[in-house]
């Protein structure tokens, strides 16, 4: 394989990886703290993309649209948590699966009611539309580089917040032992609502960044949701570090798998990787202690 192609695919893989990380981060924290499985996380990814597309249409400014759409998705997530999901923390996983499955149907259909079944365009601003020569002889789309940069910044910021701040300590305490953290004075319910909102906003951000590359359409969140689950399982549920490493691994392996292997095998390679890791370490690579 020529050098330019390797570099380009590597960048594609890392870029896909950071996007997966944004999805998986919310999922893994929500799961880590509340032991809650949320299939409707993909709907938030879709919501982010649709909100941004609508806002670009209204304001005509991509950056303004992103700045509004990301917190708006966070608010939507908080609303979802407050109205429905909050009642399901003490229920079984089965009930959580069912209710979030119902939520997916409802949210997909509401989106279809508002925007219709046809994909909605999410145009890029001129400044991000071109491509840049990253290495001699290798040019790469500016927007994908931007995704990479934004994803990396968010990942580092999230890591610093979770590992080095008091709020992050509450999150980790809640994740490793909820009852103990609660009896030591951490308002775990409040922390969880915040984490849920932040997770929703990150999913929305991932959706917005995916919008111009893939299509903004109903159900766009489902495939990425399942990949985010794979990332969460490999990384170890509740672990930010695990999610980051697993996301990059999945992004790179998936990209190269599709290029190098025959299609039937290439589409399966990340799941085979997951199977091998689960066979070796059933709790994922970086399981939470406690």
């Amino acid at each position, binding site marked *: 394989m020529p050098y330019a192609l390797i570099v380009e695919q590597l960048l594609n893989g890392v870029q896909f990886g950071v996007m997966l990380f944004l999805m998986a981060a919310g999922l893994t924290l929500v*799961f880590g703290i509340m*032991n809650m*499985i949320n*299939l409707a996380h993909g709907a938030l990814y879709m919501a982010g993309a649709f909100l941004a597309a609508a806002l670009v249409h209204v304001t005509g400014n991509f950056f303004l649209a992103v700045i509004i759409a990301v917190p708006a998705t966070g608010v939507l997530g908080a609303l979802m948590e407050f109205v*429905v999901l909050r*009642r399901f*923390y*003490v*229920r*079984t*996983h*089965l*009930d959580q*699966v*069912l*209710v979030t*499955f*119902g*939520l*997916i*149907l*409802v*949210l*997909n*259909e*509401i989106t*279809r*009611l508002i925007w219709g079944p046809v994909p909605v365009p999410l145009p890029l601003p001129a400044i991000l539309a071109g491509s840049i020569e990253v290495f001699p002889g290798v040019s790469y789309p500016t927007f994908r580089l931007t995704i990479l940069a934004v994803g990396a910044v968010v990942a580092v910021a999230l890591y610093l917040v979770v590992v080095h701040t008091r709020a992050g300590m509450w999150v980790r305490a809640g994740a490793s032992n909820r009852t103990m953290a609660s009896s030591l004075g951490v308002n775990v319910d409040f922390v969880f609502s915040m984490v849920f909102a932040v997770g929703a906003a990150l999913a929305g951000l991932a959706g917005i960044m995916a919008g111009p590359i893939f299509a903004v359409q109903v159900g766009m969140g*489902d*495939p990425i949701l*399942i990949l985010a*689950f*794979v990332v*969460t*399982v490999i990384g170890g*549920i509740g672990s930010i570090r695990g999610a980051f490493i697993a996301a990059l691994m999945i992004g790179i392996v998936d990209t190269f798998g599709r290029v190098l292997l025959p*299609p*039937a095998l*290439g*589409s*399966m390679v990340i*799941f*085979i990787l*997951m*199977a091998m890791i*689960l*066979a070796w370490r*059933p*709790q*994922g690579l970086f399981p939470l202690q406690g």
Partner: protein
Amino acid sequence: MPLIRPATVQQFRTASFNERMAPLILLVVLLALVPPLAQALDDPFIIKLFTRVIVFAIAAVALNLVVGFSDLISLLQAGFIGIGGYTVAILANHDVNAEVLTTWPFVLVGTSNLAIALPLGALVAAVIAAVTGLICLRTSGAYFIMATLAFNQMLYYFFVALQRYGGEDGLQILGNLHVFGFNVTKRVPFYYVCLGMLAVILVVLDRLIDSRFGVVIRALAQNERRVVALGIPPLRYKLVAFVISGALGGLSGALLAASQQFISPADMAWTRSGELVVMVVLGGLATVWGPVAGAAVFLVLELVLSSYSIHWQLVFGLVIIVMTLYLRGGLADLWSLVVRVYKSESAR
């Protein structure tokens, strides 16, 4: 970890043999009356609908062995349906085109004989269930849910990428499916073949749940640690339950492919797995017959709602949410209510 189990799991033991058999026989008799009724109404579509109900009931009843009785929430059942369906469709495809399937290690040819294709569909699904189950069952709780979901998607992508057999468009069955030359794919005979299989599966499963094996998997669902402390190794029991469930899922898929003369990756999408779990819960987790009622209500409701509006999934989603919030024991709870009322009436 919250461990609130539906109280109905324990109720199974206390229900007498007759109490368990009565709804089962009632359901089968009702389903047997569908074809004459459809002929009286001159509406053959009803037979087609209820063939689908029976086929999905087989998959849901099988899934209940895992979800209801073993408390393992698998989102892989649609994957097994796809495996079974593609086994039948691929064998028929090779039969029609007169191409050999493989030449190594021995020569395999295609067939349109369902007496060979149906068991083979179940067998292939069982093998895949054994491999995936062995990996998924190393995990538990939410890991198990996510892992089964991922494997379902893996099987889905595999068939999407399989251009030789239609890829995303699916695979049509062009020849005539038969059983040793006898045509069984006519609507009514095929209906009774499916119903017969469902009836046998229901009775066998009822005996299985009451057997030593059934007691162990139900005990594992309630408290695995205690069962291990009794010296019973849990993995093999869970794996057997998972493989039986997968094999019957494969059989259901094989029947599905035969009934619609077609199979496509859409028949094995992960949402279909979710729908099957909904059927199981809607019917009632702790009963053998519940998922049959669940499948019937689900598919009929789907048909009715979709005839009113293209946005029927909105209502459907709300129904699922409300069901999860309030109808904990599913339709089976309504039945046990009937039994209780009847008993208190006759005691008077």
